């Protein structure tokens, strides 16, 4: 039991999995509690019986105080029947099952206005925006960052200015980008580029600077020229960390997406969310936010999974995947003994 709370001790895989599931179940349980237990919170009353009061109708939500006042008033007026209602939560707090249903129906419901986009089309627009923004930013930011990490001159001539621009919030460039690039996808991509690029240069430069100097000296004594040092030492040595940097920066790009998409003509998932909020379909709003989370989380997990396999030399810890492959190939850890021919691989 004490193993749950030993400082800096690793947990067993079973416990790690259990806690990982718990991390999602706890907020869900809390949400359910406030949604389904009538005496928890529920600050509104949902009218079931107007009892002759003209300005309320069944299904309407009233704040509890107003409802209580109304009942008092009716009682004082010695009305035949009193209005009745059940405790309810505000419309912006839909219960889990409604959001769960919306996760499905949001995809199957046609847009209210003709010409508006379906949810999946909105999502696709968002993903395209992110993709291009992040690709353009990385195509310039990563090489610049590597140069800054390699040469002090490049670093000193670039980084102070980059540091300066970094503090300007990317959305501040919104109006400017619309003026330059028009109102469609281009200014949105530009904002993601602005939001990501400057961070990227600094993060990549720092990662490259962290490469063990001993490796560079070793390469030099083996005859490596400066060009070789970058391509054959700095880049491969920092590649796993660069990969992780990009993973984290991709997460930042998602946060810029929402502000970027309201620039010019609102588009993508943000347009969908705003539109649904306008119609007060808050279950759809939650569903869309959750979908963003799922896409981001899934992408990140997938990238992490690939990263661990791509950079096996950086992760000597035997993974479950490798153990599984090991069992498959005759009870040996494949990556640990790659020089030995694996008998099962012939099959």
């Amino acid at each position, binding site marked *: 039991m004490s193993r749950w709370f030993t400082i800096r001790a690793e947990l067993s895989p079973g416990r790690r999995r259990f806690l990982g599931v718990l991390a999602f179940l706890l907020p869900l349980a809390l949400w359910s509690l406030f949604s389904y237990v009538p005496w928890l919170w529920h600050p509104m009353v949902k009218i079931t019986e107007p009892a002759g009061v003209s300005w309320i109708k069944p299904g309407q939500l009233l704040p509890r105080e107003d409802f209580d006042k109304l009942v008092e008033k009716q009682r004082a007026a010695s009305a035949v029947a009193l209005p009745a209602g059940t405790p309810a939560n505000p419309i912006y707090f839909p219960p889990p099952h409604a959001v769960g249903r919306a996760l499905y129906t949001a995809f199957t419901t046609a847009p209210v206005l003709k010409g508006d986009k379906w949810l999946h089309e909105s999502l696709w627009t968002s993903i395209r925006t992110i993709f291009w923004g992040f690709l353009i930013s990385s195509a310039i930011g990563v090489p610049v960052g590597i140069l800054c990490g390699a040469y002090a001159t490049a670093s000193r001539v670039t980084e102070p200015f980059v540091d300066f621009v970094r503090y300007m919030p990317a959305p501040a460039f919104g109006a400017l980008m619309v003026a330059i690039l028009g109102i469609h996808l281009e200014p949105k991509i530009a904002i993601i580029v602005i939001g990501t690029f400057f961070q990227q240069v600094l993060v990549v430069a720092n990662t490259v600077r962290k490469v*063990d100097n*001993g*490796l560079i*000296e*070793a*390469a*030099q*004594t*083996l*005859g*490596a*020229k400066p060009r*070789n040092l970058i391509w*054959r*030492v700095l880049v*491969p*040595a920092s*590649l796993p960390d660069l990969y992780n940097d990009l993973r984290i920066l991709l997460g930042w790009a998602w946060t810029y997406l929402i502000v970027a998409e309201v620039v010019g003509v609102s588009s993508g998932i943000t347009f969908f969310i705003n539109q649904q909020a306008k119609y007060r379909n808050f279950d759809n709003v939650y569903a869309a936010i959750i979908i963003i989370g799922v896409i981001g989380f899934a992408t990140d997990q997938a990238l992490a999974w690939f990263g661990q396999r791509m*950079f*096996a*030399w*950086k992760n*000597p810890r035997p993974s479950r995947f490798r153990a599984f492959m090991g069992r498959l190939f005759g009870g040996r850890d494949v990556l*640990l*003994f*790659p*020089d030995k021919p694996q008998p099962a691989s012939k099959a």
Partner: protein
Amino acid sequence: MSSTPSSYPLPDYRDQSPAVAARFARIKERPVVLEVDKLGRQFAGEHGPVTALRDISFQVRRREFVCVIGPSGCGKSTLIRILAGLDEPTSGRMLVDGRESHGPSPERGMVFQGYTLFPWLTVKRNVMFGLEMAGKAANEAGPEAHQWIDLVGLGKFADSYPHQLSGGMKQRVAIARALAPNPRVLLMDEPFGALDAQTRAQMQSHLLEIWRNVDVTILFITHDLDEAILLADRILVLKANPGEVQEIIEVPVPRPRSLDQLQSPEFQATRRRLDELIHPKVHAPTERLPIVRLTQAGDDVE
């Protein structure tokens, strides 16, 4: 390795048996590969310049094995870094085969204490690195790298990654990698310092074996006096503050060397001389620590 009783009559460390003397005579006929001429290095310190090395001069002849020892802070690491081209001297010069040499170059291979293997490359690709830098194609460099890996006895591990190897194996890969581009001089900076005693002894005999079979001149830095005597033809003793050559000792222990010679009179005589140079008797009155007794009376451990 308890110090020899002073009553035991040791020969003078300068006495050489005829065989050893003949060997040194033969070495002196060989061409000079590495010449260090009045080399000096100053660093900018807080209170003006600090001299790390001053007027270091010596010559190393072809296929000679020279060890450099000295107290900590004598600048041995600075010296070998300058020789490797990783640091610039502030005065003096260094010549390889009679030509003045600057900057890092594959003619001066280096083995570092921290292995510095490229962790993303397999053993074979690590050894191929220097060959590829010399412009050799992969189909030529591959078989050549294999020869070097076999030489250090790691043929079975050619496709392993460095993190899968023990410390001694890593250092053997580092030696193979440094030797592959055929350097004139192999510089070794306390290469076995991080290894346990048993592995270290193994590595020492491995290194002698490699040196016997490869046309290479070795300059080896260590702080282990026995290691220096066991390996070296000559030992360059540095002194600290500033780092200067104190003495160059011709080791009188006959070759081939082995750990059995540790108790031989020549070995012990050399060892005693090194002890005198490195740990001079000046500091002999040992300070007693001002410790208050914290155990019960009568509860004594010695």
